[in-house]
């Protein structure tokens, strides 16, 4: 009797193993298809890294199907991508040019790898003067495979499928913050003024206007916290020293310290202009999270677990999330009453929410495997290269 009272009862699995495996099968095939070319190369390191990524991604998807939970398993993938991206990227930079810093002459020759953060700043100067205000190359070159055209095509395809979910399934920068925000058990900073949610929009307007006026991507030159873990202009003057100091301070404050203290993705929620830009696509995206008002008891749990502060009391009353919802699934997973549900636009709220989740996850996970999976494979590959022995 005593033993039965001390036993912790586990929640019953959401689906049976057979059914979960069946639902995972398409994702497993997709992963194989994505990484198939690496098995044709003689490099064993490539094959091992691809095999590891296929197993990792398929296992996580299986667990999503089996448990019915999204956030927890997505987070494992997302944090792994966030922390492994700098490993692969920095190693390839060092292999290519021997340093993380980019010399001014390489910028002049258009050898700067293109980053999607620049998109919003490119639009106005390109439309008005047909000028690309980024020192990169339009088409891939031997010294710079991350070209503007390739990145735009990739971003466009992924945005059509993911919308704002880009920030939760594709953005490797966000993974670093999510990692730090997951460390503490309880937040030290509990009360955050909801108006901080508007700051990314103001920063977006600020960088768009100023970049058009000055003909330089202001965010990349002065404000990007992730320059601290990717690449930055070589320090050759007081100005470049100040720029580097700003990058490091922003990274330490917004990506490490504040997520640790608040358990929120502070850089994404209160600073990132690209996140604000991506929110616009939530308007046209097919999938969303809705609240069933008949089941909701206004416990505010969804608001406290949301890493983006994308739920407000008003929005819950209206039965929906705010525009900056990245569809991570934290609110759905935590809702004890089953009031927060996945929703396909145009259908009745609460009608087949699991079907909506499944359709969304197929698209999102396929993109995550393609983009994040490549990042993971690259990082594992680089790590294997540094091992004293080779396969």
């Amino acid at each position, binding site marked *: 009797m005593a033993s039965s009272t001390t036993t912790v009862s586990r929640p019953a699995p959401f689906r049976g193993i057979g059914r979960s495996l069946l639902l995972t099968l398409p994702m497993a095939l997709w992963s194989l298809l994505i990484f198939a070319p690496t098995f044709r190369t003689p490099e064993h390191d490539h094959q091992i890294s691809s095999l590891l990524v296929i197993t990792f991604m398929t296992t996580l998807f299986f667990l999503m199907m089996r448990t019915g939970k999204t956030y927890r398993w997505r987070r494992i993938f997302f944090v792994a991508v966030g922390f492994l991206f700098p490993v692969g990227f920095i190693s390839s930079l060092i292999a290519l040019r021997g340093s993380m810093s980019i010399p001014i002459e390489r910028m002049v020759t258009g050898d700067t790898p293109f980053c999607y953060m620049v998109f919003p700043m490119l639009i106005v100067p390109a439309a008005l003067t047909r000028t690309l205000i980024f020192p990169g190359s339009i088409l891939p070159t031997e010294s710079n495979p991350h070209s503007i055209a390739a990145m735009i095509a990739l971003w466009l395809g992924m945005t059509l499928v993911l919308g704002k979910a880009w920030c939760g399934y594709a953005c490797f920068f966000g993974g670093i913050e999510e990692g730090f925000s997951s460390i503490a058990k309880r937040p030290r900073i509990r009360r955050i003024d909801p*108006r901080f949610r508007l700051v990314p929009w*103001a920063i977006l*307007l600020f960088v768009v206007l100023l970049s058009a006026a000055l003909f330089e991507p202001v965010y990349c030159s002065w404000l990007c916290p992730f320059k601290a873990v990717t690449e930055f202009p070589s320090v050759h003057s007081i100005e470049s020293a100040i720029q580097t100091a700003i990058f490091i301070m922003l990274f330490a404050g917004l990506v490490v310290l504040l997520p640790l203290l608040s358990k929120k993705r502070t850089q994404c929620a209160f600073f990132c202009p690209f996140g604000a830009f991506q929110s616009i696509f939530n308007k046209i995206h097919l999938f969303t999270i809705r609240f069933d008002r008949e089941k909701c008891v206004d416990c505010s749990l969804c608001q406290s677990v949301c890493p983006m502060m994308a739920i407000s009391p008003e929005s819950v009353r209206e039965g929906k999330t705010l525009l900056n919802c990245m569809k991570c699934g934290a609110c759905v997973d935590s809702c004890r009453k089953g009031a927060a549900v996945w929703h396909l636009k145009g259908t009745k709220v609460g009608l087949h929410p699991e079907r909506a989740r499944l359709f969304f996850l197929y698209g999102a996970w396929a993109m995550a495997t393609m983009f994040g999976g490549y990042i993971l494979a690259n990082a594992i590959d680089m790590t294997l290269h540094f091992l004293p022995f080779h396969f």
Partner: protein
Amino acid sequence: MSAIHFIPIPAFASIGEALLLGLTTGPVCLASCGPAVVPWMLAQPSSVRSQSKQLLLFLVARLAGYLLFATGVWVLGTTMMRAFAAHTWTMGAIQVFLAASLLVFAAGWPRLRRHEKQNAELVHIGKPIRQKRSGALTLGFLTGINFCPPFLVASVRGAQLLTLPATLIFFLSFFAGTAVWFTPYFFLGLVRRTQTCVLVARITAVLLACWYGISGISILIARLIHG
């Protein structure tokens, strides 16, 4: 002064040249003035009519800045362009003034502080600011005398003209050419002014004011240090 070559240009030719110069470089003017115009206009109540009035006032003040500069150019000739020391001082000072104006007019700084004293609920700052002619006029004038690249090109050409009326007409034509490109700003009046929109515009104005303020002060400090 002896090295300066005054090129006699027929009046019609100079008008045509200035107009074309304005029309071709207009997109750059549009982008250069964006940081001053957009947050200011978005922080105003929405109505195409009132916004158009504000934009026209802005353009009139900008024209006044152009004509003042044209007079300076005519008086000093190309030495004005060469006197880079004075140029740097002016650049720094203009940017500091622009920063202050953005804070005062677009962010409604004094009004904001009054609100803070009266009511802790800062949500009130989301209300649009009542239109102020002085805002449009000050921002227009400051952007008018700011040295954007097309303006410098026009200045060099304008300095080569022989008479003051010719220089003024040259700048007037140049202004007319660039002003055409400001048409898209009229559509800002169509944007619905929710509390969110106004608040975002004001935060942007504060950020831009910080940028121009820091930039202007660094220019002035650099000028002080390097002489």
